[in-house]
């Protein structure tokens, strides 16, 4: 245990009579998936560096219900939603940040009707606000001359119209942002949404993530940047499939920023 991540929980905060500026919703992937945990930690390092008073729910967090809802199980979704809303409202959560577009979309759009009204932002938007307000500065040197392409997560882009925040952050890195032929509103899915992550694909002639990886490789990037743990998995698998692991890295925006800061 070399690094000292400071990760307060909402329960600890409450015990001290404090209310954090923002609640960091880690999500299931960010909590349990080995690759996504690295993204979670990168984001926490940045929060620590910028002295952002944040807290997580820790063991009181549970799946938002997104994959259940997209699979058609409205019962399970609403049970998860109502349990989470009870916990969040108990802590009087106002502002939530998350690195998972699926959690982001569900918390932001589908919880309000069920009694959970919060200001929900994606971690790329939050990081951008930290830079804009001067609470965080980056030296982009490390990425100078690197070509980075950004894969728009469907649940961040088309579903919620967040296209610019991740791109603004990449441009701050002194890197060259290259756009794939299908990007932003026309972006192609990585293949994981709608609960596909948890099942085998139907018979076809190709995997969606391989098709999307081909899109990315066309622009010959050094790094494929994502803003979603599921996209990250899918693109990483795509790169493996194309045997390009040596040339192309798949990284979350939070990792790029953390690396730029040598965190």
């Amino acid at each position: 245990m070399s690094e000292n991540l400071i990760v307060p929980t909402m329960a600890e905060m409450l015990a001290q009579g404090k209310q954090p500026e923002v609640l960091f919703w880690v999500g299931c992937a960010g909590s349990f998936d080995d690759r996504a945990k690295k993204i979670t930690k990168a984001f926490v390092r940045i929060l620590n560096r910028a002295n952002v008073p944040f807290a997580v729910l820790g063991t009181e967090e549970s799946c938002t219900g997104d994959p259940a809802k997209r699979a058609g199980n409205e019962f399970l979704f609403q049970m998860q939603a109502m349990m989470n809303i009870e916990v969040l409202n108990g802590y009087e959560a106002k502002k939530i940040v998350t690195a998972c577009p699926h959690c982001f979309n569900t918390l932001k759009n589908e919880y309000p009707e069920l009694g959970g009204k919060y200001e929900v932002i994606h971690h790329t938007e939050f990081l951008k606000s930290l830079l804009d307000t001067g609470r965080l500065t980056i030296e982009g040197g490390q990425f100078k001359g690197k070509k980075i392409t950004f894969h728009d997560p469907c649940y961040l882009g088309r579903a919620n119209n967040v296209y610019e925040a991740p791109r603004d952050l990449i441009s701050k890195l002194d890197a060259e942002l290259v756009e794939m032929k299908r990007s932003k509103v026309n972006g192609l899915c990585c293949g994981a949404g709608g609960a596909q992550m948890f099942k085998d694909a139907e018979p076809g002639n190709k995997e969606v993530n391989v098709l999307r990886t081909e899109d990315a490789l066309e622009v010959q990037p050094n790094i494929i940047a994502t803003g979603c743990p599921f996209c990250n998995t899918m693109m990483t698998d795509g790169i493996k499939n194309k045997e390009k692991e040596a040339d192309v890295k798949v990284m979350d925006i939070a990792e790029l920023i953390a690396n730029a800061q040598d965190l």
Partner: protein
Amino acid sequence: MSYLDNILFAIVLIIGFGYFFNNIKKIIRNINLGIDVDRKDNPSSRWKNMAMIALGQSKMVKRPIAGALHIVVYLGFIIINIELVEIIIDGLFGTHRIFAFLGTAYNVLIGSFEILAFLVLVAVTVFWIRRNIVRLKRFMNPEMKGFPKSDANYILYFEMVLMTLFLLMNASDLHLQNVPGGFSHFIQAGSFPISQFIEPLFNGMSNEFVMLLTEIFWWLHIVGILVFMNYLYFSKHLHILLAFPNTYFANLKPLGQFDNLEAVTTEVKMMMDPNADPFAAAPAPVEGELPAKFGASDIQDLNWVQLLNAYTCTECGRCTSSCPANQTGKKLSPRKIMMDTRDRMEEVGKNIDANKGVFIPDNKTLLNDYITPEELWACTSCNACVEECPVNISPLSIIMDMRRYLVMEQSAAPMPLNAMMTNIENNGAPWQFNQQDRLNWKNED
């Protein structure tokens, strides 16, 4: 034109419009088979959407070639319809170019109609080439075999014939206008930038014969229009009417926001309420009312906007060509979802017509008989189809409602999804990890 002509024309008009409105009534009746959903909020945003997307074609031009050609045909259609008013008045009262008193303005109008008619002919020809010679991929999907393929071509032929008749009518009319010393009731009016080149065709024919031709062209043109109008009901071409209400009533919420089923909310609240009596009897069902299903297995379970969507679909295939599942060879085609919904709706409608206004169960449903679970499970809910649709149709909402039925009514989810859902129920995560370990990452290297 003799007196008899005018009466005959009035009868043709009445029959044409009568049959048309009768079918429109059927469409409205079929759309109302769907369940209610409130789409009356935010009228200003809705009008704006209709103005921008339907009237302004803002989403059509995302694909520039099809978009530009479509705008030509669309403008031609709207503007040449102005001339229809004159054609109908002339037909009913035996007048000739009733609006000729407008003078120069009239010449400008008739001239622009001609140019538009010519441009429409060019555009429609290019459309036909794209469908039948170039054979663009999105026109070649399996669901486009048979009537849908012919339908698209019939529409193009209709437009070619109507525009040609319009120009021929003007050309023969111009020929008679130019008879030295005048002929019959043909006054000199209008400007004919295109048909002046067709006019020499009539040189050497007797004036009476040209007048007969003019009348034939006129009749074929107006009857052709009435037939085309009545063809709409059977065709994907319905979109020229329904694109407007469809964009008005389209979803205004963020694309990622799926609706929360209210019936489920009530039940879940009961389950989670510590004061609820677990032994309470369910409230007695209302007399004659079927218990509501969760999700949709047939068209009566969809909402009326989804059914309006199905009637509005023009089968252009932009949704399917942008669908990640379809592009990777899966069976799912968002366009087919819409076409199947419409086909099933028509089938149910005919059943109701045949049985004096009551639907007699026919042992068929939209699910399985039209749309298979394999198609439904291939969707990644990425919203590409919704984004791509030039008239804001949502195939995704139908897919989701049918998945809900499969899972909540039939427990027919694919096995891995059942495992995922069991994990969420038991550990609050889609994988088999213990909720108590949720913060372990903090202390791991």
